[in-house]
């Protein structure tokens, strides 16, 4: 039947065209940024529509590393993100374990408040957080910021870990307990290894959020040597500045590790989305 075959070929061609058009729209800003990072000059007016069509230079990268505090911003963001991630992992897994395996006074109200607190965006309380940090002498410090992120992460993360533990039969850890291991020992040697998949998911999400957050660093960090990547990069393209090419160079360095990571892990990413997000 030639007409049916024709229809199927036509349909497939339409699908190819559709997918390719979406792919072009997805790639466009990325190729634009990439080419801007290597284009001489500062303003977007000098950029060509053809990628790399307006010359090639490494100047913006040299500028970033010699004239600005870019390495320092990178280090600060890294410290904040890693500390937030580690803190969240430790406290959320511990609390998730306790909520999943123990019965204790006030358990129900505590769990309900965690559930409710997840919903409220933490930065509506930003004036209060500012004043609290001011009172604690934690303004303009990285650890103050980490505390804020940590507290904001915990309600959701605890639920995530707790729900995961609930799916694991408690026989394993109870056996360890009967053999005389303390709670802490059971938790470290038996429970944590079992929780690896969910902790990995948590590690990725809690690293990525503070890594590029803007509002809280803007609020908390003041001095030039305490800036983060998000603050530094946005300062290149603020109202006073328009240095898009330098911004692009900085953004490329930030985004490339993420893109490589996501492309390498896309299979397990889909898996973890299925378990992490849908069965929380």
């Amino acid at each position, binding site marked *: 039947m030639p007409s049916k075959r024709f229809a199927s070929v036509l349909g497939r061609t339409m699908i190819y065209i559709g997918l390719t058009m979406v792919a072009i729209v997805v*790639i*466009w800003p990325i190729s634009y*940024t990439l080419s801007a990072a290597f284009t001489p000059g500062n303003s977007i007016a000098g950029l060509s529509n053809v990628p790399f069509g307006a010359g090639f230079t490494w100047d913006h990268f040299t500028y970033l590393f010699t004239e600005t505090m870019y390495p320092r911003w990178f280090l600060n963001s890294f410290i904040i993100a890693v500390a937030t991630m580690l803190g969240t992992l430790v406290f959320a897994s511990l609390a998730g374990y306790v909520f999943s395996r123990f019965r204790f006074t006030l358990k129900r109200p505590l769990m309900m408040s965690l559930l409710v607190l997840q919903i409220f965006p933490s930065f509506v309380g930003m004036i209060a957080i500012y004043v609290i940090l001011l009172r604690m002498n934690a303004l303009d410090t990285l650890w103050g910021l980490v505390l*804020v992120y940590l507290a904001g992460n915990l309600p959701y993360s605890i*639920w995530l870990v707790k729900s995961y533990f609930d799916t694991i039969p408690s026989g394993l850890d*109870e056996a360890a307990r009967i053999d005389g291991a303390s709670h802490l020992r059971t938790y470290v040697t038996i429970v944590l290894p079992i929780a690896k998949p969910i902790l990995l998911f948590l590690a990725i999400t809690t690293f990525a959020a503070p890594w590029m957050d803007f509002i809280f660093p803007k609020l908390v960090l003041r001095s030039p040597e305490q800036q983060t990547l998000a603050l530094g990069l*946005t300062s290149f393209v603020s109202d006073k500045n328009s240095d898009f090419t330098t911004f*692009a160079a900085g953004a490329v360095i930030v985004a490339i590790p993420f893109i490589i990571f996501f492309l390498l892990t896309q299979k397990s990413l889909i*898996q973890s989305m299925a378990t992490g997000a849908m069965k929380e």
Partner: protein
Amino acid sequence: MAVTIQPADAETHRPEPDPRNTREPSDGRVRGLALAFMGLAHLTVLDQRIKGALFALVEVAFIVTLPSLFHRIVGLVTLGSPHPELPTKDRDNSTFMMIDGVIAVAIIAVFVGVYVISVRSAMQDLRLGARYRPRSFRAQASAVANRSFPLIGLSPTVLLIAFFVVVPLVFSTLVAFTNYSSPEHVPPANTVDWVGFDNFVTMFGGDATWTSALTRVFVWTTVWAILAVATTYIGGMLLAIVLHEANIRFKPVYRAIFILPYAIPAVVSMLVWRNMLNGAFGAVNTLLMDIGLIDSPVPWLSDPWLAKFVVVMIALWAGFPYFMLLTMGAMTAIPADLQEAAQIDGASKWQRFRYITLPMVLYQTAPLIIMSLAMNFNNFGAIFFLTQGGPNVADTTTTGAGGTDILVSWIYQLTVGLMKYNYGAVIAVMIFLVMAPFAIFNFRRTRAFKGEM
């Protein structure tokens, strides 16, 4: 400390015959003692010295700090009095007094919580019976160490959340009932006073400019959240289905490309789009003019209506990979034998998709639509970095709310830009009210999933 004994715990405390007495104090007596002073029941009738001493210590510490807590709560009520004659740094700082007062209330709440735990613990120890209660110092110490595991495991978390999440939320609710705003009521130079519902009256009908701005922003926030979720959900699901079902080549290549927006931090992608959509020099306009689709630059971000459209489109660009990945995850989770059974029964490819794949994907992803609505309602980054709330409309100079501002980005403008903390707080309260049904939904969904709690 108030853990009920787990099977494993019971195993370690083997019953010892009790030579001294087997007579137990009455329920009422234990409860009375436990209520009279924290740890008293443990110390006296229950013979649990270590636990009792620890509880008593908490109460002593609380009593010592009580005068200062009281002082702070008085401060919360009065918010200080203006002393124009003093140098600025010596004047009453209302903001500090408010925070300190709220923290004092939080400390009292924590103390009440520990009190409840101590009474429950006493009653549980009593129910356990004298023969099962650890007797020697060492047995008591190890019992406390073991059974306090939940307490030790949870206290850093509870304290962090109390001080950095709950106290700020309470504080911003309270600010809505004060006149904390520039230029006349900003500490430390001036004090702040309680004004009752004045701010709510202003925002909800009392002042035409503010009321219309609030209505405008609220309606747009709702429309924005619905559009952002609807477009990303439909777009993401469509792509996932095409990549999963259609008989085409290069699937991994397409999938890898479509994941890219998800991998790029929102700050970066939004700022790139902001520059690409720049009216005069942006890549979008220059390209469209080069290929002859338009003759003059399109004001993508400076026309209020066009900017709203653009914001949703860019949200689609940034957000569809999330739902695409979710749909893919849901589709791989469909049992293969279900599809095979249908195939054996003679179902066509389209029928299998229509009656198996689609319903299962919809069922699995539906709850996430609701949560995504809540998320986008407060999606600061998608608005702020792209348009900074702009373009300006008629009331922007007074209210600070631009054409694409949603409630959260308006709060940011009000607090950081205009320093109208009181109005910002009214909006925060409004967000709380809007978010409340989502919190309840979240709660019910979890309960439905777990059957527990």
